[in-house]
């Protein structure tokens, strides 16, 4: 059920330079189930900015009717969002899209969760749900620098966690794919969210042999599947017109399903 609700800011803090953790309270939390779904946020009431901003749900706290968003200040929309104070109301549309399929792994299986930068947040709720199901979770999280790292402890509480930084200022230097290879990490199913080059590398390395689920991003308008702004091409495309809408068919897809 997609809802539209004025949610209340419960807490809002900077957890890394320009990265904010925003906890919101609202009835629509009760409709949030799949990890990897997102909400469409209207950061201001008027026309400045005009469009909503898609942000992934990072954590669902059902018993309190609260959920968490983690975002990086990028442009005008997220800058305005960063100014919201506890008690303020924010217009939220959601939950939207289809998330990571948690039923693809059985209790006792191992799931590898690979996140890059601001793609890390939805993996937190995913990890929580997998753990609840009795799945073993391993996290490989890539960040630019030591300062950019967030939620490391939170992930560690759920399972083994490796950090990679581009500049080697923390954890291992290099790409998340290097970490997986070097550490010879074994897994039954891979879930990932992050920049396209990272997703491509993962698809190429593991897409053929393993179950791989990727969360994609694209510029959106409606966020609900009506405007065709956010399509991606499918791997099988007989008449050159096959597509999926990232907002409503995704944002999570099986790696073999879509062209990156």
């Amino acid at each position, binding site marked *: 059920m997609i809802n*539209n609700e004025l949610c209340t800011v419960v807490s809002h803090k900077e957890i890394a330079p320009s990265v904010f953790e925003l906890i919101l309270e609202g009835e629509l939390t009760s409709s949030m189930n799949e990890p990897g779904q997102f909400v469409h946020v*209207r950061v201001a009431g008027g*026309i400045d900015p005009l469009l909503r901003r898609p942000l992934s749900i990072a954590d669902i706290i059902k018993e309190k009717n609260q959920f968490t968003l983690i975002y990086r200040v990028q442009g005008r929309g997220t800058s305005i969002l960063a100014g919201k104070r506890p008690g303020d109301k924010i217009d939220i*549309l959601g939950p939207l899209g289809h998330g990571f399929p948690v039923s693809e792994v059985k209790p006792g299986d191992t799931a590898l969760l690979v996140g890059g930068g601001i793609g890390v947040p939805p993996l937190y709720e995913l990890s929580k749900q997998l753990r609840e199901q009795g799945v073993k979770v391993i996290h490989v999280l890539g960040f630019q620098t030591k300062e950019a790292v967030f939620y490391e402890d939170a992930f560690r509480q759920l399972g083994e966690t490796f950090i990679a930084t581009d500049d080697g200022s923390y954890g291992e230097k290099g790409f998340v794919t290097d970490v997986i290879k070097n550490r010879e990490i074994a897994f039954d199913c891979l879930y990932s969210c992050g920049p396209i080059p990272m997703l491509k590398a993962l698809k190429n390395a593991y897409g053929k042999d393993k179950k791989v689920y990727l969360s994609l991003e694209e510029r959106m308008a*409606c*966020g609900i599947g009506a405007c065709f702004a*956010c399509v991606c091409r499918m791997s099988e495309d007989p008449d050159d017109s*096959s597509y999926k809408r990232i907002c409503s068919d995704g944002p999570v897809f099986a790696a073999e399903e879509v062209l990156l």
Partner: protein
Amino acid sequence: MNRLSVELPGLSLKNPVMPASGCFGFGREFSQLYDLSELGAIMIKATTVEPRFGNATPRVAETPGGMLNAIGLQNPGLEKVIEEELPWLEQFDVPIIANVAGSYEEDYVEVAREISKVKNVHALELNISCPNVKTGGIAFGTIPEVAKSLTKKVKEVSSVPVYVKLSPNVRDIVEMAKAVEEGGADGLTMINTLLGMRIDLQTGKPVLANKTGGLSGPAIKPVALRMIYEVSQNVDLPIIGMGGIQSAEDVIEFFYAGASAVAVGTANFVDPFVCPKIIKELPELMDRLGIDHISDCTGRSWNKHARIAHYRP
């Protein structure tokens, strides 16, 4: 008395508010949010003969008070629209206006002939103004003779009234309107998007993969109002007005300019409940402004006496 009812060629509308083509798909997504029967009508996404994938992404970019799109007429093609989308829409008590597009005259004619036969299609909207396709599209909408000829051909085969959708990317909008009136159009819809672009500062390249796109949203409202104001005084066709409408106040402003009904596009992305909200708010606003029946205020900005709406029985 229903103060919101509007009678237009082919269309008996319970209210004058409908989603604009391309901003509502074929209604499936919004049907999860509210009952589509609340709407005055639905303008469905452009339909072409063959399925189209459309342009590469990114397809949208934000602009001050507006947005650009270059979707490129993505649609499942005539056959699927007739066999799947339109029958699905029959469950709602709402007339459909089918948006007809193509690259060549023959395409338009074929889509128009076939789609106009479908039961719940009450009118066609001839999209001669899409700025986002390489061939056809906007060329038909910016050269009067071409527009007139196409209108005529489509009129010949259509089983329902034909509204022609005008492009704002012209020097003289009245000239275009007169041309399609001569071509036999039953009504006009206006405006389609203005051609625009944005450039990404980091990459130095256009934000849209298609480079340029169509500007819509509140930013274009004054241009839409001006064009409707000019056309409504010079042409004898009813106008379905659009361009930046977000509120009941905007609807009245479009009526005052000369519209007989309105469509809401971009605002559906900002607030997916905007159409039913506007419909609900209209009567109260009309009370405040002393408007008895919505059709009474068409053209009030240029006509001292409320004009009698076209086709009002």
